[in-house]
């Protein structure tokens, strides 16, 4: 499991995850200090992907806990399979063979336990990667419960006693910053802020993920998306996934560079709501965008390309 920073950098590359040094070093620190890695940033910059890549690197299971409002311990830790227990009781009443005692003992065995992600991570045979996705969605009580688990990695099931984790899992928490997380949780984590990539980084991502794309087109797409994120106040800024979709769409249209026409045809791929499309047309427009790419920006033609 022990890797050096250089090895980890190479491993990230092999997995096709283009990461800057800060990301790698922070992930490395989380692994060495055995602390949860808290990744914050806008949607679509590859926060969740880090956990997946780590699971691949260590060739281990990725256990995912998707958070939502109202998530509780039953859904996160464990639950007794109540219906199955009931059936068992009813059956034993019909047969009347078994002793009462054995029936009761059997009712709280592993057979009737519904393992949820947290318990699964604690009982895993091999050190797993535990991804707690969108932690900012849960309420504060659950957050408090969570960081108790994250600091001890043990749970108590009243019928069984205390269970201690076989291995301390690699924990990755992600947050969109919708709600301020508590200081207690932050204190326990190593923190990484992922922002939208620079055009250079995005170019590398496009080249790695979109086969058959021409050099010029990939460069122009990366620059264009960066410019759009920078210049326009959008409801939803285009994420990396949308950049890649756009690049793929352009490739399938046999484009070798961006022109106002192709931009116009593919707008729906980068902007996902009407307000943003309107905002693009009003404030920037395909013509000016392409103009910027060709270094002749400033010829404002009213933006209606």
């Amino acid at each position, binding site marked *: 499991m022990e890797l050096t*920073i250089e090895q980890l950098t190479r491993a990230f590359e092999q997995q096709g995850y283009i990461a800057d*040094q*800060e990301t790698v*070093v*922070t992930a*490395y*620190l*989380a692994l*060495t*200090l055995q*602390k949860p890695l*808290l990744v*914050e940033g806008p949607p679509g910059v590859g926060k969740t992907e880090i956990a997946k890549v780590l699971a691949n690197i260590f060739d281990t299971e990725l256990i995912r806990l998707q958070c939502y*409002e*109202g*998530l*509780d*311990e*039953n859904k996160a830790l464990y639950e007794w399979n*109540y*219906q199955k227990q*009931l059936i068992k009781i*009813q059956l034993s009443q019909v047969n009347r063979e078994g002793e009462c005692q054995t029936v009761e003992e059997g009712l709280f065995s592993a057979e009737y336990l519904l393992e949820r992600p947290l318990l699964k991570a604690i009982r895993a045979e091999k050190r797993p990667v535990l991804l707690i996705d969108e932690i900012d969605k849960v309420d*504060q009580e*659950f957050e408090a419960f969570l960081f108790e688990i994250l600091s001890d990695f043990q749970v108590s099931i009243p019928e069984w006693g205390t269970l201690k984790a076989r291995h301390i899992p690699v924990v990755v928490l992600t947050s969109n*910053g*919708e*709600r*301020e997380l508590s*200081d207690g949780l*932050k*204190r*326990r*984590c*190593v*923190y*990484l*802020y992922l922002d939208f990539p620079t055009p250079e980084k995005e170019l590398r991502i496009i080249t790695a993920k979109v086969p058959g794309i021409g050099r010029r087109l990939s460069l122009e797409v990366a620059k264009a998306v960066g410019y759009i994120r920078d210049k326009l*106040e959008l*409801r939803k800024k285009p994420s990396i996934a949308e950049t890649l979709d756009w690049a793929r769409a352009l490739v399938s249209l046999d484009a070798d560079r961006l022109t106002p026409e192709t931009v116009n045809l593919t707008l729906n791929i980068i902007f996902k709501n009407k307000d943003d499309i309107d905002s693009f047309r009003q404030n920037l427009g395909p013509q000016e965008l392409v103009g910027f790419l060709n270094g002749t920006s400033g010829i404002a033609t009213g933006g209606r390309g």
Partner: protein
Amino acid sequence: MKNDALKEELLERAIESVHRSEAREYIENNLARFMHVLRHLGLRISSAEAIDAVNALSAVNLLDRRQVETAFLATLAKSPEDRLILDRAFQAYFVTPEKKAERAERSKQAREREAEEISAVEDELKYELEGPGGEEAREIRVPLTEEEKKIYSKLPADRKKKLQEYLQKQFQSNPVNNPEQLITTMIKSSLNYWKYYLKFQGEGPPEVDYTGEEEIDEILQEVVEKLRAEELVLYQDIQKLTEADMPAAAALISKLSRRLATRISRRYRRSKKRERLDLRRTIRHNIRYGGTMFRLKYKTKKVQKPKILLICDVSGSMARYAGFVLQFIFGLSSVTEDIETFIFSEDVERITGEIDKSQSFEKTMAEIINRSEGWGRGTDFYKALAVIAEKHKGLLNKDTFVLIVSDTKTLNAEKAAAGLKDMKRKVKDIIWLNTLPKKVWADTATVSLFRRYCRMFECNTLAHLDKIMRTQMLK
């Protein structure tokens, strides 16, 4: 072996004799000082995090500046805002000795300049006084404390000149009893006003808490200057935003309010665990299983959206801020219905129905301002409270959050405080967004008067507004 240990100890002692232990350039000392700097810049760093940082440093390559900074960022800065501050502090703190010397020299010069200015004060603030009965005129210096001298030295030149002229002219041909005392009081009270004014003007965020230690303060100064020079809209005092900042600020506000709005409009059911079993529904649902309680039904409670009652001060001193808060609320009202809005100055006015969603904010605002007579007038908070309590009783109930935006400066403050106390009993919570900088709260009597009956927060930047909304309104 033993010899080695002995040698080491001797060396240790030799070092100790040269420097005090906390002043030595050990890496631990250096780190502790760095964290000290960060804490004074407003970062909250626990001891556990400090230990993490040291552990993290031992895991990275200490010769790689980028890696060292990443180690700090990962363990000490836990929000985008903190990261920005830490980065600037890192650049300022870990510098070459030459740069350090340069900085020390710069700040030494600045201090010397200041000292010169202060000593010049005595010469500038002197006047000649003729003794009673035509005695020879004597030269008198106004006795001032060090602090007062400092304030004087910071005044703009024309103000200084005015004070000097005042000394020269006023009392020479106008004999009064004990003129010295009178003049001193006049000068002092004038300086006192300026003290308040200068403090109020402030240098703007980020908040920094100087230590009094020269070396550290130099670093703090450098970081703060750098951050201020970058002029982030989020941290600027709203009043100081220029026209050019407006589009960015407006976009930021609508983003903040939209984020909050999606949270408010989402209704969810509380977790099952804490709820009571709904026996009636359980039995009905389980008849199909022959009465075996196979599927349990729980009583669920819908979470109520908070009702917001906004009382906004639009008097002269507040108009600029009020525009921003109203804009924030305008964004919210596009998803929630339950926002009651009042504006007050000398009179109070209900503008709830007038926030028309189909119109743009600018248009709505212009209409309200044109029609409203109170915009930019004096302030009577007591009257506002009294009218709301009397005519809009129905709005005050236990689901209501009252949000007051005002700088607390009002007529009838005592009565208003009583009115606020009365209101507090009827509503869920009262949150007061005070646009006065926190530094001057202690000097403002009305702040402590109102503070007793509500939770008061400093709110003069968009960052403040965002934080209050996220942490207080929607927990």
